[in-house]
């Protein structure tokens, strides 16, 4: 047989969505190789929480009023626990770094050679990573929240809970595309490590991981609440605690969706112009 095999006809092809679902599944298998590591990392992450709780207890003991920034002692500790759940969705360890590294060492090639979109691929991969992480750490987290149940006023109502889940999922998108855009800066700068370090350090504070943004007082609280970073930690936590309700909640979610859309568009544009530069100069 010496004739060239014809490419498979278009009609027989499964939809492109299947492609990324498959990437999700294969990635899930790969990430589950590391399940023991996830489990251990989670348990170890609980240790600093104990010190945080003790610290805030001491602060409240020394405070003049029972409330700080509108948070009672119980709420404050509940907030700090909930921030961990927010971060479970919005944190993207290593994403920006690995994009920048792929650009630098040329691994980016595989996305150019194959009928594959890098960003869609990375979203599928990261979603699988998150799913594997959440699945393997669900048990220790459930135990932790059970032990800390006295800090909560029980579960919020169904609508709030739905809004909470939506804010977490949108938080995943905001976190992902924000990091991705940072990593894509690697098309222009050889080294992005220090940029990432600064952003992560600042983010720890401005996203409300360290303390609720309300504690800062005006105008800082208002300013930071207008920025997208709060969706990576603060916002889902206060939604769960029932501190944002009614129209504020709807507007908050809409703004979160808008930020997600903005970062999606930004990373697309960066990717496209980055590729043009890469193909012209590097490779």
């Amino acid at each position, binding site marked *: *047989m*010496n004739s060239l095999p014809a*490419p*498979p006809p278009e009609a027989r092809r499964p939809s492109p969505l299947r492609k990324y679902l498959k990437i999700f599944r294969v990635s899930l298998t790969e990430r589950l190789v590391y399940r023991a590591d996830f489990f251990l990392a989670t348990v170890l992450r609980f240790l600093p929480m104990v010190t945080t709780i003790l610290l805030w207890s001491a602060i409240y003991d020394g405070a003049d009023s029972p409330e700080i920034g509108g948070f009672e002692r119980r709420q404050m500790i509940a907030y700090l626990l909930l921030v961990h759940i927010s971060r479970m969705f919005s944190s993207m360890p290593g994403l920006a770094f690995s994009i920048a590294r792929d650009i630098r060492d040329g691994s980016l090639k595989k996305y150019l*050679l194959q009928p594959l979109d890098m960003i869609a691929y990375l979203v599928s991969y990261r979603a699988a990573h998150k799913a594997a992480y959440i699945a393997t750490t669900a048990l220790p987290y459930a135990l932790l929240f059970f032990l800390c149940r006295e800090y909560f006023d029980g579960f919020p109502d169904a609508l709030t809970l739905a809004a909470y889940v939506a804010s977490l999922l949108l938080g995943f998108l905001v976190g992902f595309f924000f990091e991705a855009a940072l990593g894509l800066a690697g098309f222009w700068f050889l080294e992005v490590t220090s940029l990432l370090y600064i952003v992560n350090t600042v983010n720890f504070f401005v996203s409300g991981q360290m303390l609720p943004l309300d504690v800062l007082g005006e105008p800082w609280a208002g300013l930071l609440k207008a920025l997208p970073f709060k969706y990576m930690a603060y916002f889902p936590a206060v939604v769960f605690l029932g501190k944002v309700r009614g129209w504020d909640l709807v507007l908050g979610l809409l703004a979160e969706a808008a930020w997600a859309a903005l970062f999606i568009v930004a990373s697309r544009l960066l990717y496209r112009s980055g590729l043009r530069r890469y193909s012209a100069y590097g*490779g």
Partner: protein
Amino acid sequence: MPLIEAVNLTKTYRVAQKKEGVLGALRGLVRREYKEVRAVEDVSFTIEPGEMVAFLGPNGAGKTTTLKMLSGLIYPTRGTARALGHVPWDREDVFRRRFALVMGQKNQLWWDLPAADSFQLHKEIYSLPEDEFRRTVGELTEMFDVGKLTSQPVRELSLGERMKMELIAALLHRPQLLLLDEPTIGLDVVAQVTIQKCLKEYNADRGVTMLLTSHYMRDVEALCRRVLVITHGHLVYDGALAGITEQFGSTKVVKLQFPGEAPPDGLEEFGEVTERAGPSVSLNVERSRVAEVLEAILRRYTVLDMSVQDPPLDRMIARVFEQGRAAHELATGPAA
């Protein structure tokens, strides 16, 4: 219609000039100086369907840059190319489904998973129908003789086995054009030979066009009848491997064996003595003088055995590279 057609392909890189030392680096922050580096210049060639062609050239000659342009990774500064009827750097999916680039130094497979999982992923990436995919995997694993290994995590495989898996992955979507950049780099001789055998078989069976770069002359001799020699961005030779000797070889190697323990004196006047082993001697003799020299030697000495050969191919190639460099320096001044 040729499968690959390159016309005046030229690629110029702009490289930032770094000054030495801390002061230089600081100065570079303020004002950067760039130098233009011509990686490939006016390279034109065509490749017909089913051909196996080797790209030869020293490091930095422009082989990989040319492969990168043909696979659409980079745009040329000037010139055009068509591969499988497409402009490669448009990166259309129709084109990308029909070719593959394998780089011996890069690995595409998932490190912690069995190759079979990576194959599954390829199936989805290239949207291959299930039945066709199964058939291809079966054929390829048999051909490369890796049956059971596909279910072992890739990190546990030897380099040779991993390369076979890389090739299988690259062939799953049945590309019509296979670009190979150093496919046997770092492999032992046995693994090299197996890979060569498989590639050759695959080319014969399927008529897949292959363009490869390699530093191993053995690869080239085993696989390709036609070679393109590129040095300093210029295509200096395009033709049969054997033809290199005719075009660039100005000398022949005359091997002589004398009776006794050692060769006689005075051989230097006939040509350059390149090797002495006991009573055997190798002489480099200019082609035009071979007959005359042999006659003179036979008249003067007693010779037990003799032969006239072409110089070894790798030495010839080194010489072609050397000439390319000299020509380049003549045109541009010696390298700084």
